[in-house]
């Protein structure tokens, strides 16, 4: 796969205007974007429902990440607090052998 096609797909997933143009005229938009014939063929066979739902899911995740960045300090503090609070409640250490092989690495 050409890097140019990969980048085109990334734009397709994130750019609603491009998505609308591709769904309306896949071959024409592919040609305007200088895609190869095979790549234009692939656009003609696109799963439009899957594309729209994927784009919606990706947009939701991007929005979520922006919110997470804004609240990252809060999240870190929550982790530290929750760990220390619970750890304090149930003791500083756990009895050896309480769990199945807790202190040994998982065997792969």
């Amino acid at each position, binding site marked *: *796969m*050409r*890097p140019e*096609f*990969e*980048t085109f*797909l*990334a*734009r397709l*997933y*994130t750019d609603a205007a491009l998505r609308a143009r591709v769904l309306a005229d896949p071959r024409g938009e592919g040609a305007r974007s200088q895609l190869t014939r*095979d*790549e234009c063929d*692939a*656009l003609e*066979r*696109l*799963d*439009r*429902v*899957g*594309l*729209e*739902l*994927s784009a*919606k*899911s*990706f*947009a939701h*995740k*991007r929005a979520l*990440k922006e919110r997470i960045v804004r609240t990252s300090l809060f*999240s*870190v503090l*929550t*982790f*530290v607090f*929750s*760990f*220390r*609070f*619970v*750890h304090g409640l*149930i003791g500083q*250490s*756990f009895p050896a052998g*309480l*769990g*199945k*092989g*807790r*202190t*040994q*690495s*998982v*065997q*792969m």
Partner: protein
Amino acid sequence: MAAGAAGEVDVAVVEARDRFGVTWQPGLAAGILAHLDRIDVVEVIAEEFCGASSRAARALQTLASQVPVLVHGVALGPASTSPVETKRLETLARLVHRVRPAFWSEHLACVRSGAIEIGHLAAAPRTRATIDATAANLARAAEVVGSRPLVENIATLMEPPASTCSEAQWVSGVMAASECDLLLDLHNLHANSINFGIDPIGYLDTLDPDRIGAIHLAGGCWIDADSEKDANQRRYLDDHFHDVPDPVYSLLVEVGARVRRPLTVVLERDGRFPPMTHLLWQLDRARAALAEGRSRICDEA
């Protein structure tokens, strides 16, 4: 791999080394820490701790001293023709060095291309070229981090355009080219099977069972298409907000019947948290399902 006197797999020994755990979530912290007698491993999302404060890092190290920790990445995006970013790898390497997880893992996904951030895990077109590019990225990741990741099959709502092989063939191709073992997400397999009519058993049969090292379990829901033109069309979404559906446990039985090495099974739950007892019940169901599959190995022997 445990072996009996005749060189056969000692299923009881393998089963005793299976591990079951959950993904770390602040909302589950109390429940996880209070039930480490029933939780063998805890998986943490790498990006939540890469660049975190030193206090958070110390808290994670303390957690790792109490229970084996797994580091799970979601943002490297190795399934790309672009090289993985060195800075991301170095940050991940520092985290892995600090936590010393049982293993680290990453998704077989594309998350960015050029300057465009997709925002989540997109399936790369399944071609020979993307197999080779993914393997090259995984080799680079292994070099910088110091160990090979387990690689996870992803769920997708659309078949990646321009693909020339099936998902199972593509995943197997990446495993062969990269020497990375598989973190098999059975809910992702279940979701793709529903959405694209894949036979999940045929998918499992395509994989080399000796290369399956870990399992993810999760839940999902149906989502409907928005446009009137596509009314009545829907897809099944892997959202980690729902209970593990029955067919996923059935797939775990099938995995247990095929894989003759210890497995690490992680239940992923990212929100709408039920009581901890309910999550533990799902872990118990997973133990029972894997044991049922293991018993088939005994029967065959």
